[in-house]
């Protein structure tokens, strides 16, 4: 998603663009997430700023491409199980409001007006009008088609294994499994959870590690919810970091009638086999939110790997040591939602424009103890 979004914007400026994927477009995170475009789960400050900008850009793209990418400004409902949770949730929502997020504070009765099938055992919640959903594979497909239409190249099956450096340590070309490819003026590392591996192969470093998640897919059912609904402890689980796995319920419907149930976080590298205990925990917490899900059948489950960074903010900007190398990665579970603003930030950098949003918080150089570089 990130790479193709960047490619579309640059190609539109007549910049010659070449997208490489070691498999094919959307083969990584883009095909294993839920297509979330959320502001609700972002902490105030830099986290939220990028999300707000990106949500706006997605709205514009959605207006243009709508059905093709299944953009749905459905809104998100965050619910709390206890009064303590509710207090924390309301506090977060108020601070998000200050940055311009639209929120509605809901008492338990109001909750069931918004979501009639919700459990009766909830303490309250917050509704976020600005949360939306998109079908990521289709969005990637639309971007790829546009890139090709604008004369850009998309090379599948090209895994970058190294680089050839020229003068001043600029990358002259990258060596891939599909041959050598000229680098041009810029190389962008948008390799998601594999970004640190790629950086290493290019002779530099970014601290991105995989954080695995599970998604459960149910059989198609008559609509139970029109929104994305999740538990208040979700925000905590993003920013937690313990070694055990955590589960926090996220429930939503899709256009095809299936329900997507998440979420989990664990640090198990790139292990591909789902963990049945986690699947059970997600089932439990989803049924706790929507009791009518009890008899709905689970059809499949899959895992995906979020690119996580030490401070949970993305890494967008110039590499500290290799001129012309840009990073656009580390979006944790928000890559789809943050893709458009990330692409705009890279576009700003490449065109030499003043950045639309302040980029210092996402700087790759922020992790160097002896950092010399700004954004």
């Amino acid at each position, binding site marked *: 998603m990130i790479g193709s979004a960047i490619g579309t914007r640059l190609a539109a400026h007549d910049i010659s663009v070449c997208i490489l994927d070691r498999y094919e477009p959307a083969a990584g995170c883009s095909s294993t997430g839920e297509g979330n475009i959320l502001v609700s789960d972002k902490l105030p400050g830099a986290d939220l700023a990028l999300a707000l900008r990106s949500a706006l850009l997605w709205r514009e793209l959605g207006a243009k491409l709508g059905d093709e990418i299944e953009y749905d400004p459905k809104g998100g409902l965050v619910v709390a199980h206890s009064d303590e949770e509710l207090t924390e949730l309301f506090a977060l929502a108020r601070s998000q409001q200050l940055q311009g997020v639209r929120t509605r504070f809901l008492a338990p009765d109001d909750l069931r007006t918004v979501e009639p099938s919700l459990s009766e055992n909830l303490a309250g919640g917050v509704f976020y009008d600005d949360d939306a959903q998109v079908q990521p594979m289709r969005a990637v497909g639309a971007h790829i088609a546009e890139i090709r239409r604008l004369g850009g190249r998309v090379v599948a099956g090209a895994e970058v294994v190294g680089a050839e450096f020229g003068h001043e340590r600029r990358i002259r070309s990258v060596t891939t499994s599909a041959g050598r490819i000229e680098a041009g003026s810029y190389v962008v590392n948008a390799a998601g959870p594999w970004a640190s591996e790629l950086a290493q192969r290019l002779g530099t470093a970014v601290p991105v590690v995989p954080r695995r998640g599970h998604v459960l897919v149910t059989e198609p059912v008559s609509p139970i919810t029109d929104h994305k609904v999740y538990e208040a402890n979700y925000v905590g689980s993003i920013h937690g970091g313990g070694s055990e796995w955590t589960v926090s319920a996220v429930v939503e419907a899709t256009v095809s009638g299936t329900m997507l149930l998440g979420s989990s976080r664990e640090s198990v590298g790139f292990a591909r086999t789902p963990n049945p205990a986690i*699947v059970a925990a997600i089932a439990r917490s989803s049924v706790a939110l929507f009791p009518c899900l009890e008899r709905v059948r689970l059809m499949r489950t899959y895992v995906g790997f979020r690119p996580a960074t030490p401070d949970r903010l993305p890494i967008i900007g110039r590499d500290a040591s290799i001129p012309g190398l840009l990073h656009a990665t580390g979006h944790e579970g928000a890559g789809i939602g943050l893709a458009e603003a990330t692409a705009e930030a890279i576009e700003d950098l490449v065109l030499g424009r003043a950045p639309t949003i302040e980029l210092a918080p996402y700087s790759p150089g922020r992790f160097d103890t002896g950092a010399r570089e700004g954004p």
Partner: protein
Amino acid sequence: MRELVVVGAGPAGMAAADAAARRGVAVTLIDSASRLGGQIYRQPLADPGGSEPARPGGPSLPARFRSLEDERVEMILGASVWSASRAPNGFALRLDANPDGGGAVVETQAVVLATGASELVLPFPGWELPGVSTAGGAQALLKSQNVRVGRRVLVAGSGPFLLPVAASLARSGAKVAAVVEACSPSRTMAKLARVLMYPSKVAEALVYMRQLATHRVPFLGGSALISCGGSDRVQRAVVARLDQNWVPVPRSERSFEVDAVCVSFGFVPRLELCRQLELEDTHDGAHPGATAVHDASMASSVPGVFVAGELTGVGGAVVAELEGRIAGHAAASYLGRAPGPASATEWAKAVLKLRRASTFADLLGDIYGLQPGWTTWQTASTVFCRCEDVTWDTVRHAIDVETKSARAVRGLTRCGMGYCQGRTCGPALEMAIAALTGARLGDSGDLHSRPVAVPVPLHQVAEWSDLSEPERSSGDVAPPDQRNRGR
């Protein structure tokens, strides 16, 4: 913690359970049907009156399996394993044991996987019309319920299974319009010398051919059912002769009036649990799907997991039973039961018999091959994925333009994302990718990796009790003799 769980109660699973139980192992045999027998020894699901089966072995279970009913073996019937995973000291199997209560978990030191195969069907225009079924489905209906799929039936596809199905239908009083076999008889003729080395198999085939002759059923070799028509059900079947690549010969079409059609192109192993346990599998490049890798004692690549039956390669009931017996013996040894002289002899005999039976299965594989020309039977609007109504045109476009990976085609087109999760269209998709791109069959990957092996209600995923301690199991899991056939 149990000692040995056998998943699948067809000939392989039953033989494994029997062999291990005789060596003193505490065996648990699990099957999703309410009775023993698997697909080949199909038993009625219910006793007369629609009541729950009184005995696990139905009326037509072969006598040599009757001893399983003497309660040496714990049976969990009517339960599907939806997840198999490693556990400390062994493996954990999650079941949908009780449709109205919670699910169940069974922990065990060793496992024999004998989950069998499902039928391979290749799409063609009109295959989605009501009245078109698989040969296996028609056979199951007839054998276990005495119901025929129709009065005028065409049986088509490829493989030795067409003969017994057509013969059963003919004997039941249906008019079998024809048996249509895609492979040319010349393929059998070419291997005739080897075929004749198996006189009992030849005799079996001749019995079927004679029954078909008695009922005046034409056998059309080197031909295929290339389309069906009808308004809201199948009424017409168009058969054409094929060249050796299975491309229809122009102007060779004949039309049959029918009210039912049965199709089968062979079988594909059901690999879900193997994939969940991360067993090594291999692809022969000639048949869709993969087979579990194993050694001479049916041990898989994962210590403690044994495989038997169609999972190791589609070889039929005789091979399956022999493999099961070997796997049961090997599992018993793995669990520390040294074989006495009688067991050792039985085990060795099974190995020898298996060698001979396997060479016949291989011979059949040589005679009946799958050719890429079936893709020319499709029209743009032919339904390829039945669950999601994805057309051939959509799938072909994805393969031509976007990707050679089966999973990527699934993501792009929704082919394989419906209720059956690619069980019906997945093998055809593998074959389509190979046929259209010239890649080796198997390079596209497949859709057999399913972390959820069978759809299971969320409340059974969410709440489960441990079946290891039956005295202390939670109240919402009914003991085996009170389980209902689920809805």
